[in-house]
């Protein structure tokens, strides 16, 4: 797409200061003709519409969760709550072991995230900074496992954990999830941005290999750890398939499993209680998302755009 720059006027960057912040695009010359104004407000209107469509299902969920249970199915959906049957939220805990589902989810997710941070940083460092034969091939093989559908390995894993005696326990979810190909990939990316000279300087100062890793590189890769932690938290908080296969007693259920249980139990009778459970489950997700959205986006970008 050759655009003849020789015939153009001086580039706008010559006349406007370059304000290239990572978050906002550089300021643009705005010719305030009627067409530009229409386009400007037109796109704003479209954005509002799109935002409304995006939010609508969640608003419906919230307002329906506050409805009298018997009516939740029949009356037309509303965006704003009309009744405020807060009792529905208490009912969630009475009708099911919701508090246990929440606790189990927290335990499992936190344990998995901590383990993944450890394995990903160790393996990512090794792939990024240490040289050994077959490094590229090995990393490729590790990376390729991201595509493997979980269905292909679930049965042997299930048999294995049953033989160890971990069936129907939270351990069965936690330990097998510790090695992470994607997390390794992310940490390797972050470690690669740290200059090699630091290792040399440290070793001249007498540091051993472990210290170089632990005291020099790891602290510098903290943003990477944050991204791995956030993405892993999000994925495993919402995980459904493995708990479905591995867990059988309701008191061991994790949250998504518990929600489906709740739905099977109450779904035809009273969707508002089920939706109350759903809204409760969304709160931690929302909180984490707000706190960590910068890291989420960065993780998406690195996972999506590079490598």
């Amino acid at each position, binding site marked *: 797409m050759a655009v*003849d720059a020789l015939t153009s006027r001086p*580039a706008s960057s010559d006349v406007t200061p370059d304000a290239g912040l990572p978050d906002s695009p550089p300021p643009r010359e705005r010719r305030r003709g009627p067409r530009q104004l229409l386009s400007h407000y037109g796109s704003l209107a479209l954005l509002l519409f799109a935002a409304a469509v995006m939010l609508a299902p969640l608003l419906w969920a919230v307002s329906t969760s506050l409805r009298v249970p018997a009516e939740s*199915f029949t009356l037309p959906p509303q965006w704003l709550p009309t009744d405020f049957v807060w009792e529905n939220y208490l009912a969630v805990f009475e009708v099911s072991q919701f508090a246990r589902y929440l606790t189990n989810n927290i335990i499992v997710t936190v344990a998995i995230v901590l383990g993944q941070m450890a394995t990903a940083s160790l393996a990512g460092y090794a792939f990024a900074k240490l040289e050994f034969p077959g490094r590229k091939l*090995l990393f490729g093989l590790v990376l390729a496992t991201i595509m493997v559908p979980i269905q292909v390995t679930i049965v042997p894993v299930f048999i294995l954990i049953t033989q160890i005696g971990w069936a129907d326990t939270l351990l069965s979810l936690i330990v097998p999830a510790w*090695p992470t*190909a994607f997390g390794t990939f992310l940490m390797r990316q972050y470690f690669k941005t740290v200059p090699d000279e630091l290792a040399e300087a440290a070793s001249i100062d007498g540091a051993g290999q472990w210290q170089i890793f632990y005291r020099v590189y790891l602290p510098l890769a903290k943003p990477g750890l944050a991204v791995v932690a956030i993405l892993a938290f999000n994925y495993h908080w919402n995980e459904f398939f493995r708990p479905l296969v591995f867990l059988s007693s309701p008191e061991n259920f994790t949250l998504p499993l518990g929600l489906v249980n709740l739905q099977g139990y109450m779904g035809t009778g009273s969707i508002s209680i089920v939706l109350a459970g759903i809204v409760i489950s969304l709160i931690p997700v929302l909180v*984490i998302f707000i706190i960590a959205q910068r890291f989420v986006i960065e993780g998406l970008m690195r996972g999506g755009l590079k490598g």
Partner: protein
Amino acid sequence: MSVEVTPQLPVEGHKESALERAPVGRKRRHTPKGVERAMPLLLLLPSVIAIGVFVYGFIAWTGWVSVSNWTTFVQDMSYRGFTEYTRLLSDFRFLSGLRNVIVFTILFVGMCALVGLLLAILLDRQPWGQPIWRNLFLFPLAISFVVTGVVWQWLLNPSAGVNILLDQLGVENLPMWYVSTEIIPGWQWGQIEVAIPVALVAVVLAAGWQMSGFAMAIYLAGLQGVSEDLREAARVDGATELDIYRRVILPLLRPMTITIVIVLGHISLKTFDLIFVMTGSGTGYVTDVPAVYMYEATFRANQFARGAAISVVLLILVVALMAPAVWARNKTEEGARE
């Protein structure tokens, strides 16, 4: 007088440092010895062994099960042959599931890419409050597929949800959403109709709602990388805004599109949670997908060989469809680097 450069000898009494002892011109590094040399292995061993055994080893194991006699609760690993695979080729449910997952992937990725692109373009032109909009559209990504499934199952329930609204607006033929058994259009091919099951559209809507934000984020990053100078130059050459988008910006976004196809594509081929929670297999298997079939065959019907065969086919499907995309991505990157 010729100028000669003589290497400087160390001054008498000067103690050599490690740095000076190292051979000139080669990378100076603290040479690892013993345990330290094994350090890479030690760091990697746990993860790599885990992945080697628990992924590749288990894939092989599952492959063996698929050709074994294990068709009941009792484990029987004796060799049977490829019977299971030939049976699958004539199995109505399996073929429907294959058709469904491919149709679903195409529609889902297409919807996400389109919606994502539109949103990204809108956001790109609208610097005000951009982080707010961006987070708003990204939030559904953080939600569980279970939550999406439950909410949208209610929203698109033919006797509740959206249909009640449509009814109030006076719409006559209310859509059946995921209850529909229609397949449009109906091109018969062997046992199944190769076309779009209307019920799948409901699932595509739910999944697209959730994941469009991802495509938007990727496209937005790409759009923000397009320099204003390029657009300005095109404008000066007489291009309209539409031209600029079509001829200049869209081709530059091609790597982003490939990324989106790869990531969303392999997620959708493996879909389980959303279908399982939202619609199940559906009447006439209009919303069945291989992942759900595998689960029910293995863990409900104890047909382990069949479940294994399905998962092997699923693996091959993902690899076969994703490999060209990944190859295209590598080619684009190389082209961009030159």
